[in-house]
């Protein structure tokens, strides 16, 4: 992609009212832009990152045999009345009416619709266990949206739902998804700890949330020797402070053993040939658009973002020191054509300082710098966002470049 035409734009100054690093960097690096309070447009750089995260998640969910579907965003109030959550959800729910004055909401979550859907179509069959998942936009009318993409009114989630005959079955499905989540987070390059949590208005048997350490976090926790996290409530502070580091973290996933909380109320029954009983259900949310700022929280320095390779919007940025030098532009163009879509070509007529600063800010892992001085020696510079550089001869450039890249993986 050519920088000049890419709709990537960066800012020098930290916007007002920004408290967290990720919020600052998502705005300054041109990842996202607020359209109205709590509703963000994701710009091209951010969209590329989200797509990479999505692909990793989809692959891992497919690997555990989960089935992808797409549920509508608008949901009828009658579903939520059945589960008893229409009134509980309160102000946080975006409600609307259609032409016939029937009430709808913008889905804050999809348990009700999943149960209804499985009930209508699976009762005759004996096909549990099953895990269904989707990527979709969710809505919660937060009183105070804040922290950029960390707490918004509209966000992208990957939500999964499991259905089993027995509590033991639920435990197995739960472990399967939990293990997949741990793999996904490690592939994406995010540190997070599963921590027993309170089920809240979701209800059910038990739940765990995955807290990712971040300076923007609103929860405090410690990591026990077993590697398992423990969330600190007010009274715990005095007990642990001083003994071991207290971390702040942000919830990025939440897994629930809902058990029969929804199936019993909404009539999703199954049978073992002798008696009928409500299905055992689990639900597993993963905040895709929240993982993005968390990656930034965990991977940055004072100059900008340092994207992990697995989710970087581009692998390489090609920077011309003098765009108006025809030889420089010609060589840069040639390299760009060779590298193809994995490269961003900074073809702007800007001062080199501006270009280097932008490259650091948007955090592309590899940089190839084409300048007239280097070309005199028939070389370009190959630098890494994480530090270090090397000169590469233009003879056999692609071969050498790929070799170095492979070695550094």
């Amino acid at each position, binding site marked *: 992609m050519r920088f000049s035409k890419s709709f990537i734009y960066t800012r020098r100054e930290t916007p007002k009212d920004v408290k967290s690093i990720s919020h600052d960097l998502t705005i300054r690096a041109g990842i996202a832009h607020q359209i109205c309070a709590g509703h963000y447009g994701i710009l091209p750089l951010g969209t590329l990152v989200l797509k990479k995260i999505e692909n990793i998640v989809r692959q891992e969910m497919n690997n555990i045999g989960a089935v992808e579907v797409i549920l509508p965003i608008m949901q009828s109030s009658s579903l939520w009345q059945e589960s008893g959550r229409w009134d509980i959800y309160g102000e946080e729910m975006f409600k609307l009416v259609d032409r016939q004055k029937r009430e709808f909401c913008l889905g804050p979550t999809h348990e009700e619709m999943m149960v209804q859907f499985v009930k209508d179509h699976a009762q005759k069959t004996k096909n549990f266990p099953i895990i269904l998942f989707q990527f979709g*936009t969710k809505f919660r009318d937060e009183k105070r949206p804040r922290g950029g993409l960390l707490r918004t009114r509209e966000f992208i989630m990957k939500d999964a739902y499991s*259905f089993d005959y027995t509590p033991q079955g639920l435990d197995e499905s739960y472990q399967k998804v939990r293990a997949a989540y741990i793999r996904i987070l490690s592939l994406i390059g995010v540190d997070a700890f599963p921590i027993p949590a309170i089920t809240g208005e979701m209800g059910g048997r038990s739940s765990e949330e995955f807290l990712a350490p971040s300076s923007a976090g609103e929860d405090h926790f410690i990591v026990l020797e077993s590697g398992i996290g423990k969330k600190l409530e007010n009274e715990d502070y005095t007990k642990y402070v001083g003994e071991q580091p207290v971390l702040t973290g942000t919830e990025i996933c939440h897994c629930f053993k809902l058990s029969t909380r929804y199936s019993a109320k909404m009539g999703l029954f199954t049978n073992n040939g002798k008696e009928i009983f409500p299905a055992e259900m689990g639900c597993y949310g993963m905040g895709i658009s929240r993982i993005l700022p968390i990656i930034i929280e965990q991977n940055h320095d004072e100059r900008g973002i340092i994207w992990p390779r697995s989710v970087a919007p581009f692998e390489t940025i090609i920077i011309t020191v003098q765009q108006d030098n025809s030889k420089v532009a010609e060589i840069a163009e040639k390299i760009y054509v060779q590298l193809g879509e994995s490269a961003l070509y900074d073809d702007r007529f800007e001062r080199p300082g501006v270009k280097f600063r932008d490259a650091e800010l948007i955090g592309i892992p590899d940089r190839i710098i084409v300048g007239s001085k280097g070309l005199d020696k028939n070389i370009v510079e190959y630098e890494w966002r994480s530090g270090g550089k090397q000169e590469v001869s233009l003879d056999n450039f692609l071969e050498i470049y790929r070799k170095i890249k492979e070695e550094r993986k």
Partner: protein
Amino acid sequence: MKISHQLFPDKFKVPENWTSLQTYKLFEKMGLAIFPKAGFPLFLPVGQILINSVNQIIRETAYQAGFSELYLPLVQTPNFIEETGRAEQFNQEFFYTCNNKLILAPTNEEVFVNLASKGINSYRQLPVRVFQIADKFRNIKKPKGIFRSKEFLMCDMISIDLNKEMLNDSAKIFEKIVEEVFQKLEIEAVRVTKHSDHYIEYLVECPEGDIYVSRNPDRYNPSGKHSSSVAMYFLFEQGGPFLSVADGTNRRSYVGTYGFGIQRCIHAIIEQHRDGRGISFPVSVRPFNSSVIIMDKNEPEQNKLAENCYNILLKSNAKPLFDDRADKTLKEKLDLADFYGIPVKIIIGKKEVANSTVTIKWRNGKTEEDSFASNILSTILENLQLKGT
């Protein structure tokens, strides 16, 4: 995909009297989508595969042509669209949220132009060409399956251009994208000029359509054939953000808007690829490339051989459907594979196990026998031309 492991095995069937069903009804009867409420589609696994394939083809083609992808929120304040005076065009079709009177995005031009005005300040940044694939919402009166739903998927594209020439270039690039996408999706559409050369629609013939077109020359004609729009573009002479141009003055930029209806594309594919036995899906979006049919699921030897075939095909990207249902006859299974347009069926029964062979039946008629299951791979892949993909 193993049918026995699907939550909705009852959805895997050839719908009764399907040849007399209009495509929008057939889509639902095929188990591609259901509607929890009229106008709001829920895409089941096979429908989801189709949506993702079409999205991916459009996405790749748009990227190749130099468009960047972004994602605008689904909710917007109504003043964006009120300011441009277009709110009236959508009269009565907005969904308003109850507590804060926001609208669900019916379209996104205004929001994008507003966003662009924050990022573009120099003519050197133009043209800017972006797209997104996202849900849109319109509170319409009479939804019709996925063909016309209240919540629907669209790919909308926008260009911001310096002048008329650049705008025309953007339009030409979009025309090329349409051509490539329709070629890959094997959709035949006619390009029709609406009002002036600023407004172009790509139409396909279908009985559900409420636009009428006659051919040769292609034009709107009230006594023409029922058609519907699958893609369109509209060029605004003005309407873009102000920016400083080379001579130092401030000038308003031009805007072009372009779009594909994702659901309309899928509708058109099915409409145009129905044959006597089912839907002969184009290879680019075909949900399954092969079907492994097991005659008796309760025979361990047959199961073993079939699993073996299934796994080989799965690994080779031959997208197998594993028809391991116990309560269906061989004919029902063969008919289902034909209905989904699956080009090759691998049949495993008592005879095949005894002879260590499999029977291969192609949708286009050939029947072959191969001596060992593990060898079927090369034959099938060669014939499917999927080797190395």
